[in-house]
């Protein structure tokens, strides 16, 4: 049995601390559903919400031509499942008002003499005006509109000149791997899962030491022969177990409800998750040792978490970030873990593939725990 130099059995003490933590959690009636049920509910709701797909665009048509051709073009938009026509007018100002009132997010303007110009001079213009407040959505809806018009154009050519060879010389063949249906939940669910266990880990675990500071029970602890690292370990382990449970539960939900593929090895996922959790929880504990009140601790943790989550590649692409931002990511544990989750789950990456994310996490864990232990003083 491991004995410290003070003749004091280490494992036993840690077990006693863990027992106390679990007993306290059990007593805390309000917390239990919050820890176990809420994250799962969030997983379900948020995964459905998080999508960049544009399912429908509200289109306003300004038709100044009123010709057969313009009606055909309009009909093509009407027939598309991605579009809903929410207004017709001759007047651009009406259209613009509609966009302002958010009744439409795109305007198609067909000028006068559209049909005539096209047939006479082989060239005619139309205008697509898009509400670009949401930049990337605008890019996508713009693309949709363009492809509908292009389609219309091609059909027109084929009808008019049946023998024309319209095939593009450059034949672009494409395939989407790992997620052929381009299902957005497949992408988001692993990420949201990471987000949820991070919250449990960082906040729940972190607030714990400060709580004891605030209510004063830490005095009694400090006066016992408990070692610093025993105390820290005793605080870490219960929540580590809980978080891993949540991960397992979440993965099960992911598979059952969302049909997320789990191509890679589960052991690898849990292995890296374990290390990640230690890293992030120790960070929470370290923050805890810096703060005097739970409020402060929460605020600090929140501050770090928001920055880390946003920069981690969970919602937005990392590649697009400037170099200095990517540098900050070196101390961002979330940014190491998310690619592991995604790559292992969706692509089946193995350990060698993700080792470049794994080792930094191990380092991170070591450093955070050391910081937390160092900072926690039993004698002030």
């Amino acid at each position, binding site marked *: 049995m491991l004995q410290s130099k003070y003749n004091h059995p280490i494992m036993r003490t840690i077990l006693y601390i863990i027992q106390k933590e679990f007993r306290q959690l059990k007593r805390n009636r309000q917390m239990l559903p919050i820890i176990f049920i809420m994250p799962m509910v*969030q997983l379900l709701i948020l995964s459905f919400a998080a999508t960049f797909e544009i399912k429908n665009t509200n289109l306003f048509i300004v038709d100044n031509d009123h010709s057969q051709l313009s009606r055909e073009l309009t009909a093509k938009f009407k027939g598309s499942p991605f579009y809903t026509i929410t207004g017709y007018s001759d007047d651009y100002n009406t259209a613009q008002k509609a966009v302002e009132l958010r009744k439409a997010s795109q305007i198609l303007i067909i000028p006068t003499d559209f049909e005539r110009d096209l047939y006479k001079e082989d060239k005619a*213009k139309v205008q697509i005006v898009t509400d670009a407040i949401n930049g990337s959505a605008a890019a996508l809806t713009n693309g949709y509109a363009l492809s509908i018009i292009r389609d219309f154009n091609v059909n*027109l050519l084929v009808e008019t000149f049946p023998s024309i060879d319209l095939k593009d010389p450059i034949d672009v063949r494409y395939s989407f791997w790992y997620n052929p249906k381009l299902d957005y939940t497949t*992408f988001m669910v692993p990420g949201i899962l990471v987000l949820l266990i991070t919250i449990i880990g960082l906040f729940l675990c972190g607030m714990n030491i400060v709580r004891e500071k605030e209510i004063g029970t830490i005095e009694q602890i400090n006066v016992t022969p408990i070692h610093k690292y025993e105390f820290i370990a005793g605080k870490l382990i219960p929540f580590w177990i809980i978080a891993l449970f949540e991960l397992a539960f979440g993965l099960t939900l992911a598979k059952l409800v969302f049909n997320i593929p789990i191509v890679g090895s589960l052991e690898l996922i849990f292995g890296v998750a374990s290390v990640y959790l230690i890293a992030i929880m120790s960070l929470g504990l370290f923050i805890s040792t810096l703060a005097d009140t739970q409020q402060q601790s*929460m605020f600090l943790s929140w501050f770090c978490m928001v920055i880390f989550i946003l920069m981690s590649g969970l919602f937005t692409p990392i*590649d697009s970030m400037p170099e*200095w931002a990517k540098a900050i990511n070196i101390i961002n544990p979330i940014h190491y873990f998310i690619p592991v989750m995604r*790559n292992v789950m969706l692509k089946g990456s193995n350990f060698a593939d993700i080792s470049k994310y794994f080792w930094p996490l191990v380092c991170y864990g070591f450093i955070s725990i050391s910081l937390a232990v160092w900072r926690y003083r039993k004698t002030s």
Partner: protein
Amino acid sequence: MIILFGMPVVQVLLFGFAITTDIKDAQIAILDKSNDYMTHEITNKLLSSGYFILGANLDKDDQIDKAFKKGNIREAVIFEKNFAEKIETEKKASVQIIADASDPNMANLLFNYSQSILMDYQRQLYKDMKFPLQIQVETQMLYNPELKSVYMFVPGTITILLMLISAMMTSISIAKEKELGTMEVLLVSPLKPFQIVVGKVIPYVILSCINAIIILMLSFFVLGMPVQGSLIFLLAETVLFIFMSLSLGIFISTVSQTQQIAMMLSMFVLMLPTILLSGFIFPIENMPVVLQYFSMIMPSRWFIIIIKAIMLKGSGILFLWKETLILVGLTLFFITMSVKKFKVRLA
């Protein structure tokens, strides 16, 4: 604390400069089986577009899966053998684009960009040929011509920060009194409960206002985000939202017994849904209908609409009366609920 003021600065900076939904420098792998002047020209075109950078040069098909699994490569472009020759003689050659769709949005965008670059190249090749019946499309982007994603984020950032300070911190602060037992002391003092609450809440009101102003100033001066509409109106709506968040925070504190619970509740019921369901990052229109209804009771959703409208479109009260009324209604609702809960405790 410095963090309290540093927070908005940092967030604005991050959003302004670091975080974007635009595509830039995505790593691609090129498998060029031809290695002729055409494939080189196309590759150059791709790599100089700003969207792509070269991640790897592959020589075999089976290397593609491995490249994807390593996690850096987002797309592979494969040119078949004798590409230029085939184009010149048979007027037909194929390019295969394989996108890593584990991020479907990225895959879609990258594919679209790749395809349009290829089509562009094709057009250049055949620019002297005339095609009949060409419909030319002019595109215009309203309110945000450069498609800057920062316009999306700033309103959301303000909302989140205000919610954090006004709702979350308030709820924790009041819950703290409950937890430590000092609430009873306050309640038996000659102060009316109303005064106690107001006293607790005032510092956060001031803090929120200062933070909101800092963010607005920063986004205006540093990020160049315009304020098309009336500044006064913007500030008025902001104050309304602050009160709304306060009432929400107070309500949460009435149902929480400890600070930890107040925090967790705020986190799960407020912050997460605010970030994900309010239209901050993900557009509401795209969500399943159920969630769209759900987001209607999220005050943050309405506030984001209001801010965006005032700042980017210059809308006035006439356009926004509906949303404003909803915020007022929610505020009253939460205040009433809090008062009721409070009375129950005292009884």
